[in-house]
């Protein structure tokens, strides 16, 4: 593992994305399933394991979210225990989506953990900020929204977690990148739709997703790790298609929409610097962003009174 001379972060990262198909509501069975896959990975341990949104519960829970939500510490302990039971001695980082119960306030969250034989540490918990509540989606009926997009340090450099619709708002990858993120980890649960288009031999929603993710990665010169839930939930098919996208927006590896699998790639994080040197959009944005945000015509709160009104 080579280290970056400036940041001390590892330059290479062996990423494993677990595209899982949970059984609705059966947390313990789904955890046992993940433990089994961890066992498969332990023979050749990766550096980072990423799981989808709501990975151990299923996504569409309605009121059952209150039955299945866990505290961040309990969820972290479950994942760490699952890894350590494999007997692997290597340290591993794990990111996963889960429904969080924070003393009776519920969130659609994602956690980033460092796990080793000595124990585990919660590096960051991101609470989904954009809760889809339209059409088939009803998240904000049951959940509270997160209020902050954090960028956190890992041994592979600064990262940010964005959950599903978070990444549809282009300002989210933008803010994450401006705050220093070099990798975006995106746990997701995306119900597929759209069978009319003949341009690509796939659901239309998948084409839109790929375009969004590719644009987010290439505009900011970041690696993007997308973990998609798979399997049907009451007629709504989750589109999997987990992928790793490089800082030029190219897909390094991609899973099919249907069926659980492990997606694996060894990436060179040095690609980020090369990509940014060739297309310095992030540097340009850093210079222009203050002008954009300080524009008086933007409907942003500026004084205490305005904050209260918003």
């Amino acid at each position, binding site marked *: 593992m080579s280290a970056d001379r400036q940041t001390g972060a590892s330059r290479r990262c062996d990423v494993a994305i677990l595209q899982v198909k949970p059984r*609705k509501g059966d947390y313990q069975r789904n955890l046992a399933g993940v433990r089994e896959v961890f066992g498969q990975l332990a023979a050749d341990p990766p550096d980072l394991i990423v799981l989808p949104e709501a990975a151990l519960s299923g996504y569409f829970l309605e009121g*059952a979210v209150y039955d299945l939500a866990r505290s961040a510490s309990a969820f972290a302990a479950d994942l760490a225990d699952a890894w350590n039971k494999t007997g692997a001695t290597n340290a591993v980082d794990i990111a996963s989506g889960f429904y969080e119960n924070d003393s009776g306030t519920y969130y659609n969250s994602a956690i980033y953990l460092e796990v080793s034989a000595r124990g585990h540490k919660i590096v960051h918990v991101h609470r989904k900020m954009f809760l889809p509540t339209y059409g088939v989606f009803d998240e904000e009926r049951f959940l509270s929204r997160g209020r902050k997009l954090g960028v956190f340090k890992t041994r592979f450099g600064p990262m940010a977690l964005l959950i599903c619709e978070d990444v549809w708002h282009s300002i989210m990858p933008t803010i994450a990148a401006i705050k220093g993120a070099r990798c975006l980890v995106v746990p997701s649960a995306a119900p597929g739709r759209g069978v*009319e*288009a*003949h341009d690509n031999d796939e659901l239309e929603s998948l084409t839109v997703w790929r375009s969004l993710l590719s644009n987010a990665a290439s505009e900011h010169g970041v690696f993007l790790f997308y973990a998609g839930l798979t399997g*049907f939930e009451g*007629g709504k*098919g989750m589109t999997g298609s987990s992928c790793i996208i490089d800082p030029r927006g190219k897909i390094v590896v991609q899973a099919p929409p*249907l069926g659980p699998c492990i997606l694996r790639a060894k990436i060179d994080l040095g690609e980020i610097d090369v990509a940014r040197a060739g297309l310095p959009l992030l540097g340009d944005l850093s210079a222009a962003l203050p002008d954009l945000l300080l524009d008086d015509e933007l409907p942003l709160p500026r004084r205490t009174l305005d904050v209260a009104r918003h």
Partner: protein
Amino acid sequence: MLPVIEPRPGIDELAPTINASVAVSWLEAFLQDELIERRAIEHAVVGLSGGVDSAVTAYLCARALGPHNVYAIRMPYRTSSPDSLTHAQLVIDALGLKSRTVDISDAVDGYLQFEPEADGRRRGNVMARMRMLVLFDQSTKLHALPVGTGNKTERLLGYFTWHADDSPPVNPLGDLFKTQVWELARYLGVPQPIVQKAPSADLEANQTDEGDLGITYARADAILSQMLLGYNDAQLAERGFGDDEIELVRSRVESTHWKRHLPTTAMLSNTAINEFYLRPVDY
């Protein structure tokens, strides 16, 4: 003079299309998940009417479960068109399905003899509900799941018998317009006589769907697909549809919302089922 290039959508372009290979793959996976993985049921029961919807459903079930795991049930009434039985048999033979013919005439007439004044609509509803009774009973006997055949067009227009055609617990075609089902039929190789004939509920002699509805499926689907996206009547008229056909379609949709829901239950508590107590169907 430079040529001016601009979009000119006509009604044909507004009609729903379908990428059949994508849809078929998705629906196969849906059936496998719903029957085998979620319910641990290997077999499906499909009521084969001789029409295109049930034929496509049978083809999808055969692909998802294997033809030997699909039971085709033909349920003629004494006034049913002989073509219906013949066309259903074409599907059975083409796929190699297990099949059974249950004549519902005696069961239907057993009740209707006490209701001699029943008009065609009532008689048709009794037949449709009797067929569903047979399908559910056969599914219990065969350790199979009844698979529904209703399409999105008839669901939206309310052109079905409540708690009959719509009652099977899974339905692969319910989000596809009739014209899309025809496309799937062609892709799947459903026998030509079934794809080409005028669709009919075959509840009365010489009945056709389009005659009952007063509009062709092609026009209805084009209007419905735009209407569901949120376009109002004026916007639909701008797209080239006639006021009468817009009114016909909208009035059918808006008068049949109740048919697309479970029965209305009086709410008396903070734990009313499906109002406060909310759990997904697969929980």
